[in-house]
């Protein structure tokens, strides 16, 4: 199978991997491909940096789906039979939207003003990721899209992304919430003292130590939001169904650098554990080794020992420029060294993959990929016939 077939066969494509490897770009390029192929496509990014917006030629994205006008695509010489839209999640906005969607009308204002809520929505690790999954589910269920491409946050956060629903579910474990919602919390310490000496002691110590004199507020938060958390468990289960479903394909995007590949290995093993296996691999920013391009069986690795010979050959082509000839030879050899290291690491990485997983290599373009045309140029490498 090649990547084109993989994308064609799935409705949801999730690009995962470390930061700085072009994950956002690959996600955007895949989405553009989908639109060109005639699918109604939307790309979601939850990376807090507003990188996708610039890749898509948009100045800013909000937490609403925004269509990229056909005229903009046509203006760049891209003919799309389908449509392309993008959604960049604003973490705070997503929480607010969730509250507005699920909380009872009379509690909304109270929740949004709650200091604890404001804290939670801004800083609670994983909440951000959860919101993205929630959005993904909404889009998947809307039936309006033929292809949904998701750009995940960098590796370690990518794991947060995948585990967020479960963790949030644990956190919101109903028995615990009930604990917080108990009236003595709102009533304050005096009431609590009467109920349970130990609990009171611990809580007071914690409050003194941390200064979070906000237990009543926390309690109020959970009371106000109890409606919101009612069907939370069901929604989390649904989210995992979508992530693990046959319609979903996780594609790893990585560069062949050693540290990045190390992170990628870790991510892969974690994803296996979560029963969300990889279905494709994109090696991005690859340097090709020249010797490997020669006929099979005659693989000759060029090394520093060949310097004089290579510089001589270039010198004959550039008579009168011996210094440049030597610099060109050195530059060539330097890139061979780089390419060899990458080649070895990619081969090693591929050993662990099954044959059904398509692997593509996108060369290290000497240009920034940040406009639609550049995204389209990637297609030749991403979707070349295997």
């Amino acid at each position: 199978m090649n990547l084109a077939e993989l994308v064609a066969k799935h409705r949801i494509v999730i690009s995962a991997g470390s930061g700085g490897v072009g994950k956002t770009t690959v996600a955007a390029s895949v989405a553009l491909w989908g639109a060109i192929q005639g699918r109604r496509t939307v790309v979601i990014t939850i990376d807090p940096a507003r990188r996708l917006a610039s890749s898509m030629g948009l100045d800013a994205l909000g937490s609403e789906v925004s269509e990229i006008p056909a005229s903009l695509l046509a203006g760049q010489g891209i003919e799309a039979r389908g449509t392309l839209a993008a959604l960049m999640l604003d973490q705070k906005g997503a929480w607010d939207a969730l509250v507005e969607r699920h909380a009872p009308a009379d509690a909304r204002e109270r929740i949004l003003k709650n200091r604890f809520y404001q804290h939670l929505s801004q800083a609670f690790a994983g909440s951000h990721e959860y919101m993205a999954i929630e959005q993904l589910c909404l889009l998947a269920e809307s039936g309006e899209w033929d292809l949904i491409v998701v750009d995940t946050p960098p590796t370690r956060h990518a794991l947060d992304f995948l585990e967020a629903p479960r963790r949030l579910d644990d956190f919101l474990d109903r028995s615990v919430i009930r604990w917080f919602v108990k009236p003595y919390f709102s009533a304050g310490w005096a009431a609590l003292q009467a109920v349970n000496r130990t609990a009171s002691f611990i809580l007071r110590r914690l409050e003194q130590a941390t200064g979070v004199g906000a237990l009543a507020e926390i309690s109020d938060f959970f009371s106000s939001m109890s409606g919101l958390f009612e069907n939370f468990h069901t929604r989390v289960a649904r989210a995992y169904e979508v992530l693990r479903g046959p319609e979903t394909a996780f594609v790893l995007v990585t560069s062949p650098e050693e540290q990045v590949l190390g992170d990628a290995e870790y991510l892969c093993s974690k994803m296996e554990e979560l029963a969300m296996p990889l279905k494709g691999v994109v090696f991005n920013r690859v340097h090709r080794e020249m010797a490997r391009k020669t006929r099979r069986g005659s693989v000759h690795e060029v090394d520093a020992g060949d310097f004089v010979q290579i510089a001589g050959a270039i010198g004959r082509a550039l008579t009168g420029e011996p210094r440049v000839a030597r610099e060109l030879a050195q530059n060539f050899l330097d890139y061979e060294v780089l390419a060899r290291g990458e080649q070895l690491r990619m081969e090693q990485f591929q050993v662990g993959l099954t044959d059904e997983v398509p692997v593509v290599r996108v060369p290290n373009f000497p240009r920034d990929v940040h406009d639609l045309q550049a995204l389209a140029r990637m297609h030749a490498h991403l979707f070349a016939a295997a």
Partner: protein
Amino acid sequence: MIQRKLHFVLGKGGVGKTTMAAAMATLFARRGRRTLAIEMDAAGRLPGMLGSSGAAPTPKAVGPNLSVLSLDGRTALEEYLGLVIPVKRVLTTIFSSRVYQYFVAAAPGLKELMTVGKIWYEATREEDGRPRWDAIVVDAPATGHGLQYLSMPQVAHDTFGAGLVQREAGRVAALLRDPAVTAVHLVTLGEDMPVTETLETHAKLTGELKLPAGRVIVNRVHARRFAPELVARVRESAASAPGKQGELLEAVADRATEESGWAEINAEQLERLRNALTTDALVEVPFLYAEEFGSHELDQIARTLEPTLEVRTSGTGRRVRRGATE
């Protein structure tokens, strides 16, 4: 700059943030300063890069003048509570209680706050009447998250009610803002999006967060530029040369084009940084053409950083690249 005590290294993922932190720590240690390298991620790569195997939950010596420490928010919080509640039995009760388990989860930002608090503790710790460390280098989490950490003391100070946390948060925030003590370095690449992000981060850092900015380190800078007409001549000869020779010349031309292309992009982006960041010294770290990244490469980077950290804060964009005279 090199005399400051607390160095935070920030940058988005994949730009070589950990590498820069390791190089900086190596450099300080070599200069005879008792140095602690801290990673804010219990499973990071910093200890490995400095030659230690596995995470270091307490400061662990990895070489002359050099120790490494892996911080984890939860442990930091427990340690902190250990300091303010010195009765072990009570502590054990607290840690094992469900209330605590959920209290930690329910107080977002607390872990971040405690992590930064732990750094503060190490920065101010004394032993035998003198500071335990001369220099601390922190490999912070990727940009967005890293900023969240650095702003947490101030946020906590403003949000939490009067109490120990508020007092301590105020103290930590003051230390982080002291330009005689702290420097926040940004690592980036000479490409469009990383530079855009760096400029945004820098503005936020010096504006809203009022933190002392250190150097902006541009990693993996390509600097060779080959005249297009010469490359074209090589390509022409490639077309007429026989078999292998032609292939070789073709590849030589390809590599030259690739290198020149990157050099051009890098130069353009460096110019953007230079124009936007008037008071900050820009540091360029050359691209390393290595098969594998090892201690030799780390050393090379440390040597590149050394002169640039000596420069006074007010200096403008000191160039590292040899012979660069743009």
